[in-house]
């Protein structure tokens, strides 16, 4: 398989054509798929149901039963009142932190990686492949190996615990997969285009901006989906490289759920969990097939 057929989406089902609607084959086929779909949907269902029940109902009822009385109080509480220590302003702080982390990280990492990929695809200089190989290998190095020295680097740069530092970390760790993505895509573009622009006298940046970027909007969208979900969902970097005031939403969620004052309020916890999941879920549902293409293209080498 090559990256191209994934990227361009020229895919067709390859199995045999079904003949009858109610053949035993179809019953098995749809049966299995439906059972599987059920397993995948249950947690989402339970999460939503729990988050709109009151605590008394949770204690007596079971997690699968729909609420007798729908309340959005847990959502309000999770968003604006849940406490970690003395800070009782809910998840909203984490939400905005995550926004301020995700937006610049996504833009900067894509900007850098697309230019990298372009240079690697069309302007190979001596030694470029060495760095590229290191970069790809880097994607497999466990983060645990690098987290401590990066603390030192950020400290020396004065960026430790600052949002800017975290943006840098995300840019760095997003680079291997994004560079690969863009390089493979740019290689797949017809070379004549590039040559023609060269003959017209366009330079490195000219070709990139006028020829390559306009032709590769889909891949930019794919990269954005990849980065937004990846960065929003990050926990490890958030917990190590920021301070409580700058915690991204995932870290704050874990804090709120695990700081119990008195009784655990499961409905608030589930509402908080839903709130944290909403952004990537929206991105996912809106982007649909592009998301699949994104992860497949990012994961399968060219």
């Amino acid at each position, binding site marked *: 398989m090559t990256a191209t057929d994934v990227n361009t989406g020229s895919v067709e089902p390859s199995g045999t054509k079904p003949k009858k609607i109610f053949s035993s084959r179809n019953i098995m086929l749809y049966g299995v798929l439906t059972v599987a779909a059920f397993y995948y949907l249950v947690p989402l269902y339970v999460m939503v149901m729990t988050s709109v029940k009151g605590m008394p109902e949770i204690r007596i009822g079971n997690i699968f039963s729909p609420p007798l009385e729908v309340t959005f109080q847990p959502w309000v509480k999770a968003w604006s009142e849940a406490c*970690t*220590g003395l800070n009782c302003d809910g998840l909203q702080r984490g939400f905005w932190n995550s926004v301020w982390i995700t937006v610049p990280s996504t833009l900067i990492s894509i900007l850098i990686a697309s230019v990298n990929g372009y240079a690697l695809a069309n302007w190979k200089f001596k030694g470029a492949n060495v760095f590229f190989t290191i970069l790809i290998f880097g994607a497999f190095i466990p983060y645990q190996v690098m987290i401590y020295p990066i*603390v030192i680097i950020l400290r020396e740069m004065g960026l*430790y615990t600052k949002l800017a530092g975290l943006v840098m970390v995300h840019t760095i760790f997003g680079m291997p997969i994004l560079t690969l993505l863009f390089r493979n895509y740019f290689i797949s573009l017809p070379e004549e285009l590039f040559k023609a622009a060269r003959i017209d006298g366009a330079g490195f940046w000219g070709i990139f901006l006028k020829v390559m970027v306009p032709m590769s909007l889909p891949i930019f969208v794919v990269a954005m989906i990849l980065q937004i979900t990846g960065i929003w969902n990050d926990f490890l970097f958030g917990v190590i490289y920021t301070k*409580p005031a700058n915690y991204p939403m995932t870290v704050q969620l874990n*804090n709120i759920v695990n700081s*119990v004052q*008195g009784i655990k309020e499961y409905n608030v916890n589930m509402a908080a969990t839903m709130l944290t999941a909403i952004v990537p879920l929206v991105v996912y549902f809106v982007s649909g097939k592009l998301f699949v293409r994104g992860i497949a293209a990012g994961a399968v080498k060219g």
Partner: protein
Amino acid sequence: MKCRFLLAAALAASVALPASAIDLEVTHWWTSGGEAAAVAEFAKAFNAGGDNWVDGAIAGSGGVARPIIISRIIGGEPMGATQLNHGRQAEELIEAGLMADLTELAEKEGWKDIVNPISLLDACTVDGKIYCVPVNIHSWQWIWLSHAAYAKAGVDVPTNWDEFTASAPALRKADIVPLAMGQQSWQTSGAFGVLTVALAGPDIWLKVVKDKDVDTVMGPEYTAVFEAFGDARKLSDGANVQDWNQATNLVITGQAGAQIMGDWAQGEFQVAGQKAGVDYTCLPGLGVNKIISTGGDAFYFPVNEDPEITAAQLRMASQLISKEVQVAFNLKKGSLPIRGDVDLSTANDCMKQGLEILAAGNVLPDGNQHLSQDTSTQLEDLMVEFWNDKSITAAEVQKNYAAIIADAD
């Protein structure tokens, strides 16, 4: 309307505070109900002085929060002040010059004369200089018993450890978990320490923790403790909780008979509106050896280049040790104040017991003062494994325990 209010506020601010209102971020891991109420007293006092307490609570336990606190400090982006357990946790940070020297303030205010027992201040002292403010005395040596649970089981509330183990079958019959135990490693390790002090006695315990004497670990007294601890394991079956305060909650609600936990559990009973002697009983030293350990929390102030922040740090340090704040804080926290000259007539039954033992001088240092974090972690890992894996025998654990102590620095 709103505009005018803002303006008025701005004016008031500029008049009242000539550039001295400082935001000081304070990190701590006090996130349970009782703890949060207590730390709010600190914040109130600090804000009343015109500064601004920026709360940096980190959920979980010390084990979760300490890494974050420490990496902040060594990462060159320190908070204004932070909670740590005094003793050896901050040793290297102090040696690296990352913690502010409070000696001058301490001498001015005469901390040496007011802190009781003085060992608390010693734990803050490195090379004759004072680096932290002890804020409370916490003792591990308690067991908390639920009256509701014993009423349900129809047995008298035990007065010591042996009676407690004897009462366990009756509790089980009433569908009550005899011993609530959270599954985090520091809890099991702490409970083991309590049991050691109670059963083997403080001297034997000190020989191991302070002098790192391996022979004592392998000796008969410790053997008995390891076996008793091994037997206690089955008492917590069915507790299924992680956090200590959830375990305390089991005792409060009568779902569990007892919990071995430090006196910070007191705050939870208080928040739940329970009364010592009426709803629950507390036994220092498991009712065997009436003694308390004097561990506790301390506040450290990372070195700061901004003189205004440094001044605010000193203001906070001075407040934390002041009489009023000590009383307000410790009453909520359930811990004992670090100075003997305060009036705690409003303290409840359990705290009074603690104060009496303290006054009588039956005190022990805390394990943290003698064990490095590295060693503590290994011991905690060992004990939590022992507690949760019933196939491990007491003898095996004893051997591993001895190996860790032999290696300790």
